[in-house]
């Protein structure tokens, strides 16, 4: 009886959203792999960009939403566990896509530059940001009490978003003062169809983000409910089965 009314995280809205995301992803595959041309210099490696750039965009979007959720939780008038769950769910997706951006970037680097990693300012600060939010997620897992967790995690979310620009600037400054960019950046006119494919990628990934966020947020509601009532329900069920009567009469019988 304590279980929530619904055990599914899907609604009509998320189904429509999911379908739209799938269609856009299929569209992205078509454009990225088949319809867009290969690059004059980079060849087929340029196709990694259609995953890489949308991933990086999502990472920033997700961490921005985490910051909003954290601030909204801390502000007394909007304080609600929903904001906390949105912040947490968004950070999970952000870490996932930051990881994806780093991996795809490394693969692209291996093909184009010949090595996986370079101490480029953007790479370095992205790696730090990745670890920063891995820590945020680890932090969220340590406190079982939702209220305590929400408040501290909200502060951590705010601290993290304050430090991101400082990290970004310091790393930028560090690399530019100490080493000229190893690679001359060519700025070729980006092909129209390439740009369009990139745009499709950003739209598709944003839809995937929204879909994941909604489901994950609802799953967190269920998780909290299950943590709060799980034990009571289990005991009630066992008692109902007659296996563990509280007064021990079953043994006498």
């Amino acid at each position, binding site marked *: 009886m304590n279980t929530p009314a619904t055990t599914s995280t899907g609604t009509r809205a998320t189904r429509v959203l999911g379908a739209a995301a799938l269609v856009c992803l299929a569209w992205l595959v078509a454009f990225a792999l088949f319809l867009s041309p290969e690059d004059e210099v980079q060849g087929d490696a340029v196709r990694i960009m259609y995953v890489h750039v949308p991933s990086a965009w999502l990472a920033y979007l997700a961490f921005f939403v985490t910051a909003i959720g954290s601030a909204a939780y801390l502000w007394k008038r909007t304080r609600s566990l929903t904001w906390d769950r949105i912040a947490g769910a968004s950070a999970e997706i952000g870490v996932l896509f930051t990881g994806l951006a780093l991996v795809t970037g490394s693969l692209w680097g291996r093909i184009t530059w010949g090595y996986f990693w370079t101490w480029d300012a953007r790479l370095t600060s992205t790696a*730090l940001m990745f*670890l920063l939010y891995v820590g945020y997620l680890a932090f969220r897992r*340590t*406190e079982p009490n939702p209220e*305590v967790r929400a*408040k*501290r995690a909200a*502060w951590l979310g*705010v601290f993290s978003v304050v430090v991101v620009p400082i990290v970004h600037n310091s*790393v930028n400054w560090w690399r530019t003062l100490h080493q000229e960019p190893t690679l001359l950046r060519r700025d070729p006119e980006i092909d129209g169809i390439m740009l369009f494919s990139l745009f499709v990628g950003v739209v598709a990934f944003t839809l995937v983000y929204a879909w994941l966020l909604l489901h994950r947020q609802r799953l967190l509601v269920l998780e909290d409910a299950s943590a709060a009532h799980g034990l009571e329900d289990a005991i009630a069920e066992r008692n109902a089965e007659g296996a563990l009567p509280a007064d021990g009469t079953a043994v006498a019988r």
Partner: protein
Amino acid sequence: MLRSAALVAGKDLRVELRSRVTTNQVLPFALLVLLLFAFALDPDRGTLRSATAGLLWVAVLLSLVLGVQRSAGLEAADGARDALRLSGLDPAGVFLGKAGALAAQLLVLEAVLGIGVVVLYDADPRASGVALFVVTCLVTTVGLAATGTLYGALAAGLESRDTLLPLLLLPVVAPVLIGATRATEAALGTGGAATSEGWPWVGLLGVFALAYTALGLVAHGSLMEEA
């Protein structure tokens, strides 16, 4: 607020004077780290000397983690945290006090490590860089103490705080490592760096210190409420 800060800082420093945890454990640990770097980097090739600034501050950061654990641990034992909340002291003052006590210990640590790198790594301080180095240490210490106190309060009372704290704290202080290392290199003249190259980095360290002191003043009270 300042009176509260002085009381809390006095208490933390008095505990340290009596228990000698920093002097007997954290300081030797920091010196040990200096030795380990020498084992990792061949001392004969001049690598140590050219990397002195960075190694010095890495040793400080590693010791910072221990210092923060100690500082936050003081409140965890014997219900000291509840007592602190009951005492009616200004939460912002409590933050300043704890950060101040931590900063005082860090400054001692940095002085010892500074002598350590001169002796062990053959670092060659020059007269023109002394002012830059001293200011760098002061500003860096403020930033590190504020950040450390804040994250120590954040992780306080959590079951896995000892393993969690380094993961949370070290990425945040990465800009401090960059800034302090560059400023110290300028002070030492590593790689022919001019002293004047160091001051912009002190500016970065100052921004960091201000940002985290401000965050601490605002957030610490709220973080102390639930433990």
